[in-house]
């Protein structure tokens, strides 16, 4: 038998063993799932006797659920977000023939596969905890949603099978028509992942915006409850947010690997991966505020009191914190772009210094306005001097009209950072380039002016006009800028001449830290807004339907909650670091084999000691 023949046989054997493992895992999951469903049904019968259970010695039921649910949701966000851009990267690899994209897509999927089991584990723990701590609530939800529980289990099985086929079949399905099958598996993975996300979303959104569930078949009742007013806004918001989370976490992973890279190849690869991760995060971040705005509109339309609790009640200061986090995220993402322009493209530093400074000033000013609270904490004497709790000047910036305006300006600035990065080191050659550039400049300038004019005008019109027309118009204008300038720039760049090659692997260590910072900001944001969504229900398990009569029916103050969010974020970061460390153990072992990779000389270490471009070039 030839070597290739043996290799094929060995591969087939390996494949058979993996197939058996997958089958066994599915069977086991199914076996585990059945008693869970039974438990859920049993809970309906016994709920009348016990409404709550608690373990005060471990911090109380609510805090336990808080930690477990948060870890599960963050992991789930990552696990559902990553397949989207892993699949897109694979398609780009196929279409361009660039093997780097395929390698990157595979690396993303490796992270996804290793995080998947932990996500399911936390999901299982969460379910057991909920059944134990909140039997009455779970009985009520089970009574309504039981058919969707079954659908959820089925989806999980399908997702697991598809993920294993997608991951373990990667190398086997590279050649010929098999790549098409692999891409189809990637599509299926995303379809199942999308449904896995929206099914539990219906349970959570029903708690926030329940509709009346009349009699009917179990399926009809479950569907009626599923189709509630905030279901789709949350679905869309979470879908985008998952991509952002996944992108920034992959970026942070690349940043970490870049900081600890020992070889030039590693530095080049992880610099590029960090760029792609940051790009995906920013790309998702731009439309995210619009999705959030839609969600808030639906909340207000569903129940004005809930909207007021969020925006004007005890949670109003939360949005100042949100502004701080998003502001830092915008700054971090832009800073990373600017570092890329100045370090990867030689000669760009001088050329783009002034625009970068201008963008930084605009971002800081916008952040200042966004973070200005509507009313200030002031002593009686201070309030008298100000003529009320609203500062005569700062009070003007504390209202929604100002905040909507600066958010849109920040999106435009971030978009411009990306466009500058895209165009840096290239010279346009198209005959229509001048006209196109004038059109793009005009569109951007005009859009900025109209956004500001609408923002100022918003002070002089009733709130309903501002919310329904002006804010929507601002959003549409910014979207218009994104969808006109992006394809125009793409067309221009197609025929552009490269004047300065982009050199990967030369970013300073602070770029790695910027990527980590962005990921931490996104995770904190998700924990913060999870607290907001949960607290907006105030003392209801299901808003207006089932009251929380436990000792934990209150919503804790923001400081206490923020300490918990920080703890959750820290635990999640450590968890992800551990999962990624385990997942990449094999790579490190391979890299350690003699002769596989070139070790950098001491002076060329980029991360801690500061890179030396001269040495890098010599090494390269």
């Amino acid at each position, binding site marked *: 038998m030839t070597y290739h023949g043996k290799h094929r046989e060995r591969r087939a054997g390996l494949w058979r063993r993996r197939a058996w493992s997958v089958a066994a895992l599915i069977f086991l999951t199914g076996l585990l799932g059945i008693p869970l469903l039974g438990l859920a049904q049993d809970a309906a019968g016994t709920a009348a006797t016990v409404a709550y259970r608690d373990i005060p010695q471990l911090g109380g039921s609510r805090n336990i659920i808080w930690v477990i649910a948060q870890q599960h949701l963050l992991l789930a966000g990552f696990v559902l977000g990553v397949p989207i851009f892993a699949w897109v990267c694979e398609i780009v690899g196929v279409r361009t023939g660039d093997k780097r994209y395929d390698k990157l897509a595979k690396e993303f999927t490796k992270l996804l596969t290793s995080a998947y089991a932990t996500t399911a584990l936390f999901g299982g723990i969460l379910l057991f905890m909920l059944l134990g701590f909140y039997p009455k609530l779970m009985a009520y939800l089970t009574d309504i949603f039981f058919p969707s529980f079954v659908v959820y289990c089925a989806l999980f099985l399908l997702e697991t099978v598809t993920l294993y086929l997608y991951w373990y079949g990667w190398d086997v399905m590279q050649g010929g028509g098999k790549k098409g099958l692999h891409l189809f598996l990637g599509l299926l993975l995303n379809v199942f992942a999308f449904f896995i996300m929206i099914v539990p979303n219906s349970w959570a959104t029903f708690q926030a915006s329940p509709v009346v569930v009349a009699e009917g078949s179990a399926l009809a009742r479950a569907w*009626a409850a599923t189709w509630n007013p905030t279901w789709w806004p949350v679905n869309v918001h979470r879908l985008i947010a998952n991509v952002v989370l996944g992108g920034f976490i992959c970026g942070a992973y690349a940043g970490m690997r870049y*900081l600890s890279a020992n070889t030039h190849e590693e530095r080049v690869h992880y610099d590029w991966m960090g760029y792609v991760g940051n790009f995906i995060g920013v790309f998702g971040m731009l439309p995210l505020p619009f999705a959030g705005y839609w969600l808030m509109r639906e909340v207000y339309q569903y*129940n004005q009191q809930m909207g007021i609790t969020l925006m004007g009640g005890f949670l109003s*200061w939360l949005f100042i914190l949100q502004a701080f986090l998003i502001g830092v995220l915008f700054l971090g993402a832009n800073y990373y772009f600017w570092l890329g322009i100045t370090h990867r493209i030689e000669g760009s530093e001088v050329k783009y210094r002034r625009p970068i400074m201008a963008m930084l000033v605009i971002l800081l000013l916008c952040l200042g306005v966004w973070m200005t609270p509507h009313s200030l904490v002031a002593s009686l004497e201070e309030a008298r001097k100000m003529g009320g709790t609203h500062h005569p000047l700062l009070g003007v910036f504390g209202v929604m009209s100002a905040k909507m305006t600066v958010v849109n300006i920040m999106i435009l600035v971030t978009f411009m950072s990306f466009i500058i990065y895209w165009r840096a080191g290239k010279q346009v050659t198209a005959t229509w380039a001048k006209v196109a550039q004038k059109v793009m400049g005009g569109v951007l300038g005009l859009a900025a002016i109209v956004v500001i004019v609408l923002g100022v005008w918003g002070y002089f019109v009733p709130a309903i006009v501002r919310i329904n027309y002006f804010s929507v118009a601002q959003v549409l204008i910014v979207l218009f800028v994104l969808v006109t300038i992006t394809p125009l720039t793409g067309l221009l760049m197609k025929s552009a001449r490269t004047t300065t090659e982009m050199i990967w692997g030369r970013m300073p260590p602070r770029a790695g830290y910027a990527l980590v910072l962005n990921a931490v900001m996104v995770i904190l944001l998700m924990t913060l807004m999870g607290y907001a969504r949960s607290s907006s229900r105030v003392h209801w398990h299901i808003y*207006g339907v089932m009251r929380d009569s436990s000792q934990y029916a*209150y919503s804790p103050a923001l*400081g206490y909650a923020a300490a918990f969010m920080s703890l959750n974020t820290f635990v999640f970061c450590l968890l992800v670091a551990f999962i990624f460390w385990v997942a990449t153990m094999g790579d490190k072992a391979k890299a350690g084999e003699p002769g596989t990779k070139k070790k950098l000389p001491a002076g060329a270490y980029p991360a801690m000691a500061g890179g030396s471009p001269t040495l890098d070039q010599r090494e390269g």
Partner: protein
Amino acid sequence: MSEVALLQLIGLLVVALGVAILLFIQARFLRVVGFVMIVLGTFALIALSIPQMASLPPAEEKFDVATIKTSADMAAIGQKIFFSKGQCALCHSIGPSESARCPDLKGIGAKLTREFIYESLTQPQAYIYLDYRHEGPPKQYPARMPHINKNPIGLSNNEILSVIAFLQQMSGEPITVSPSEILQPTAAAVALAQAR
């Protein structure tokens, strides 16, 4: 030491530990951990520096037959049920509303008899009062009127009578439901409630 002061102290310690790690430790992973600790500690300290307000739940209302002396007492309890357990306000408004998915109930106690209201609550499809058809464009989340006396809402007869009393009072009509119609709980039910 107050809870806020304690958390501030912990936050400061976390930031200080992060700074110490960055200053004195060279291991790359630990340096990143130190950096994350500084970021998270700073975030918590900022959150602890703004006004601290917890949202406390209002006192829980209980349907206690013993407290009902007059028809007005029944209406007061009915109002609470209308906005909570009965879930009426999930769909109905009292007065015109853009967001209400079902008919406006303002003045309904004057338009319909108590028997008709009772039938509408317990057998909603028995007869559709023509004034309460959906007019104009269809609502985004149409809801079919549920049987109020069955699960998941499952109001008791006493609770339904109280809601009717509220609807009549809210419409400026004399309340025709009398406290004498309230069913007293049996000894077995009292024992069960006490056991719970």
